[in-house]
């Protein structure tokens, strides 16, 4: 089965962002495909490379990065939602005259069209919201 996930929730403030990760990992280990994870709204914060979670707490940015590497998943961060919330790649950092990019490795900024495409090309789209 080909899944895409939409993650609306902050990786820090709501459990829902962690549930999305557990779902993705379980589905992949069961042999399913994750076509794309689309981070929207406060969900985009997971791609802020400045995040430093306490040692003894869940580190969703790193967990998604490792999972994406192992299974070659597309981690797409909504560009409009990200720019508003201060998550910038090199292009956007330049465009908005900020000192440095802070998009974490493994994530990609792109438009809502990537969500439309994910809906079109996946068997199931599952929203994790808060």
């Amino acid at each position: 089965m080909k899944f895409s996930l939409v993650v609306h929730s902050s990786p820090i403030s709501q459990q829902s962002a962690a549930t999305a990760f557990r779902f993705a990992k379980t589905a992949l280990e069961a042999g399913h495909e994750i076509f794309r994870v689309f981070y929207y709204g406060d969900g985009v914060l997971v791609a802020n490379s400045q995040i430093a979670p306490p040692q003894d707490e869940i580190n969703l940015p790193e967990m998604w990065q490792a999972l994406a590497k192992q299974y070659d998943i597309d981690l797409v961060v909504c560009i409009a939602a990200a720019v508003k919330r201060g998550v910038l790649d090199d292009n956007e950092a330049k465009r908005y005259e900020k000192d440095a990019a802070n998009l974490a490795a493994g994530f990609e900024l792109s438009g809502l069209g990537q969500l439309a495409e994910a809906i079109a090309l996946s068997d199931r789209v599952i929203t994790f919201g808060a």
Partner: protein
Amino acid sequence: MTLHLLNKSPQSMSLYSNMLASLSDNDSILLIEDGAYGALSAHNKIFKSLPDTVSLFVLRADTEARGLSERVSALFEVIDDNQFVELTCQNVKVVSWY
């Protein structure tokens, strides 16, 4: 056949009533995160008027975290993450209520 995912406690009454109004025969409900509190027997009345064809599930990781392991109503089947994935395959679409 639709799987309805719900992640808020029964305090969100209108979320529950919107979900219940959206059910068709043979749909399933899976309570996750704070939704797991909906599986306490005290909240059985929410689900009482559902047809027998609607199946009720609650996610194990969430019942365990919240101290609900011994407190889940018999109306619900407690399932693990693998069964969660299977449910999303068995149903043709998934609607999230949050």
